[in-house]
């Protein structure tokens, strides 16, 4: 019995040793290949960068027709194409991938007719077709990489597969497609993005918000449109971004949205957004929500009133200060602190409150304000 077991263990040990040796061998081999490939790629990159820079810098007379321009572009590629055809499949793949990197690199900085040339070369060298084909790969990381590159290449031909990729099973592919569609189609791509995206995770929201914020008020129309989306994550994203952009015209639609009885998470976000937008039109709704049984909504309303600085609401905020728990007292006190002299007078009065916790919180917040610390 022992001997059999030992034989089994010994067999596994041999397998383990084989594994370690093989892995170590491949590790070293991989490192060597990596170093060599990188060297070759760097060299090729330099060569193609210089070759394409020459091609792109050659001037073409103003007013030349499209057909003639394309014939001219093609004439500059003949040599490159012939050379690629002579290569083995493996070498050709390497060269084409380098050419792709070079052209993507150029496409980031070029405009006008020159970018048209870049797009023509990409198309003529069948790089675009290959990237579009890659969008159908069963491997998500290949699809994501293709989506990213199609955006960088401003490939209008890729709008259809990129739009389809908004419904991809992988969030990475979805986001790369969103980003590329915005690069190619500009802010109008938001319509499809909001319409077709299954959901917008917080992570996608982080990435997308940075891009959309650059469009500022141009994006507002699409954000307002998506308030009626059936997907809560899309609505939440739009509400938050409308507030961040500071689009004051969103106040009325947001009030209407609140009146349509949305789910609590979206309601809370709208109250918060109304506070950030700081428009008195929302005052009645905000005051009403200081009595909301949902604590998060109540706190958002108090915070919003604080941001609004509406003196009319001092009484109701003071009431919440007296009745609320520590968290609510703190937020109410900070809201009062934002309401100028009247709010501060109330805070000073609350510092003499009979209840210890209220007294302490009022003291804490007063000190914060006096020291000019951010609330």
């Amino acid at each position, binding site marked *: *019995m*022992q*001997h059999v*077991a*030992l034989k*089994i*263990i*010994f067999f*596994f*040990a041999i397998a*383990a*040793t084989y*594994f*370690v040796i093989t*892995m*170590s061998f491949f*590790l070293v081999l*991989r490192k060597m290949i990596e170093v060599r490939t990188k060297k070759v790629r760097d060299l090729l990159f330099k060569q193609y960068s210089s070759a394409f820079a020459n091609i792109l810098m050659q001037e073409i007379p103003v007013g030349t027709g499209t057909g003639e321009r394309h014939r001219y572009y093609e004439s500059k590629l003949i040599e490159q194409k012939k050379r690629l055809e002579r290569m083995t499949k493996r070498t050709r793949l390497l060269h084409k991938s380098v050419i792709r990197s070079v052209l993507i690199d150029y496409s980031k900085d070029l405009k006008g007719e020159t970018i048209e040339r870049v797009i023509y070369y990409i198309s003529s060298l069948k790089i675009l077709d290959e990237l579009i084909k890659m969008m159908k790969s069963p491997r998500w*990381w290949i699809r*994501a*990489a293709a989506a*990213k590159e199609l955006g960088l290449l401003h490939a209008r031909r890729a709008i259809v597969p990129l739009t389809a990729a908004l419904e991809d099973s992988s*969030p*990475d592919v979805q*986001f*790369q497609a969103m980003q590329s569609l915005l690069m190619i189609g500009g802010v109008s791509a938001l319509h499809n993005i909001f319409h077709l995206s299954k959901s917008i*995770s*917080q*992570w996608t*929201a*982080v*990435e997308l*918000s*940075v891009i959309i914020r650059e469009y500022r008020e141009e994006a507002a129309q699409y954000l307002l449109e998506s308030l009626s989306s059936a997907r809560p994550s899309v609505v939440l994203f739009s509400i*938050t971004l409308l507030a*961040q952009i500071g689009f004051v015209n969103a106040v009325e639609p947001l009030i209407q949205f609140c009146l349509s009885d949305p789910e609590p998470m979206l309601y809370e976000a709208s109250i918060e957004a109304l506070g950030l937008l700081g428009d008195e039109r929302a005052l009645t709704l905000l005051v009403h929500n200081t009595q909301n049984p949902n604590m998060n909504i109540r706190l958002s309303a108090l915070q919003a009133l604080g941001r609004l600085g509406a003196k009319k609401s001092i009484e109701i905020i003071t009431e919440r200060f007296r009745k609320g728990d*520590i968290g609510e007292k703190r937020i109410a006190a900070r809201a009062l602190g934002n309401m100028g002299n009247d709010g501060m007078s109330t805070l000073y009065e609350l510092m003499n409150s009979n209840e210890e*916790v209220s007294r*302490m*919180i009022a*003291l*804490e917040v007063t*000190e914060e304000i006096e020291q000019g*610390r*951010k609330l």
Partner: protein
Amino acid sequence: MSEILYLIFNVYLIFVIIYFLGVNIIYSLFLAVSFKEIFNHMRHNAFVDYRKLIQSEFTYSVSVLAPAYNEGKTVVESVKSLLKLNFGKYEVLVINDGSQDDTLEQLIHEFDLTKTNQFYYDVIKTKPVRGIFISQKPEYKNLTIIDKENGGKADSLNAGINIARYDFVCCIDADSILEDDALLKSMKPFHEDKTVVAVGGIIRIANGCKVINGRVVSVGLSHKLLPIFQVVEYLRAFLSGRMFWNIFQGPLIISGAFGIFKKSILLEVGGYRIDTVGEDMELVTRIHRTMIEKKKPYKVLFVPDPVCWTEAPDSLSVLSRQRNRWQRGLLDTLLIHKKMMFNPRYGIVGIGALPHFLFVELLGPVFEAMGYISLVVMYSLGVLNIDIAILFFIVALFYGAMFSVGAVILEEISFQRYPKPSDLALLLSIGIIENFGYRQLTVVWRLKGIFDYLRGHKHWGTMQRKGFRI
């Protein structure tokens, strides 16, 4: 009589062989799964632009909690380093746990602190707070110091949780070094998945690295052998061990040196337990337990690339105390949560993770020590089959080496933190050398930990650090 002894030892030997086989199959599985998981992680990261996390208003804010006890020599540099993290909105809360030295004075002097009237409400009960300090200098506006009576690391962290302003808290050791982008990388899972409640990053050994102004500027290995053994151990534990549990409900340990939690979860489970030396493992196990019992969807994750550098013990006495404490902490946690053990109600945690910790991590040294003892006894009785013993030893060596070398390979194909080929070669050789002496020493320390626990020793002990500031 000798026949009975012979029978007993033979039965024991068979048990050891089966145990050995089982453990090694588990570790092989760990390694294989970890390879796959790390590749997946790397692929996902290839498309991430972390700068957007800094720029976006959608990024969650974080409170960084750093408990400090008698850290007067290093606390200022550590806090300065924390204040320079690459992240959007975050605050740094340093909790002075009743230090006997000049920790508080150093902080007050360097950061121009004044005592505030901030109201301290202990949602989680803690030792009394003597004062809350903030800086008068605008550049340190996100720094708060809590001065409290001594209550231990767990109590300090609880005080920090009570006062934390943001929805996520990052618990670290005040004397560790967080890499600039560590918060960015470890906050990503919370943004991707709302059910993620805790994330742990990787702890790496800073001995031998060049540290300037609280930043690791060049990675290297120590000139001493002891920290290098620990480098391999840490790689094995983090890259292979914790990565494996990610595919289930997540690891049972998030290192006390670097972990991020949803604050609401910490409040829900009542914060850290103050009566255990394994408070980090106990907390994560309790999170698993609470969430499963309440039938709430949740995830605990280990992320392999946000790095926290820590100084490893470079003397046998300090290392032995550390390992002793870890073992006591493990045993304590397993006893506290014994109800979960083998209980299918707790899913893979109950029937997989906890039994693994019991049989492999806790009892492993016991079985190994008994193996050594039985070899000696069998030899002295003249009943030892020398050939089999040698064969067994060689096999054990191969297996031990395989997992260590496997972890180094994982590191090399993924993060490649050790740029020098000589360092890589040294790490690979340590994977073999550690089986001669070092491994046996750790067995002794861990056994002593169990023994001390059974004798009722539940204290932290002292951990002297030399500091790696330059």
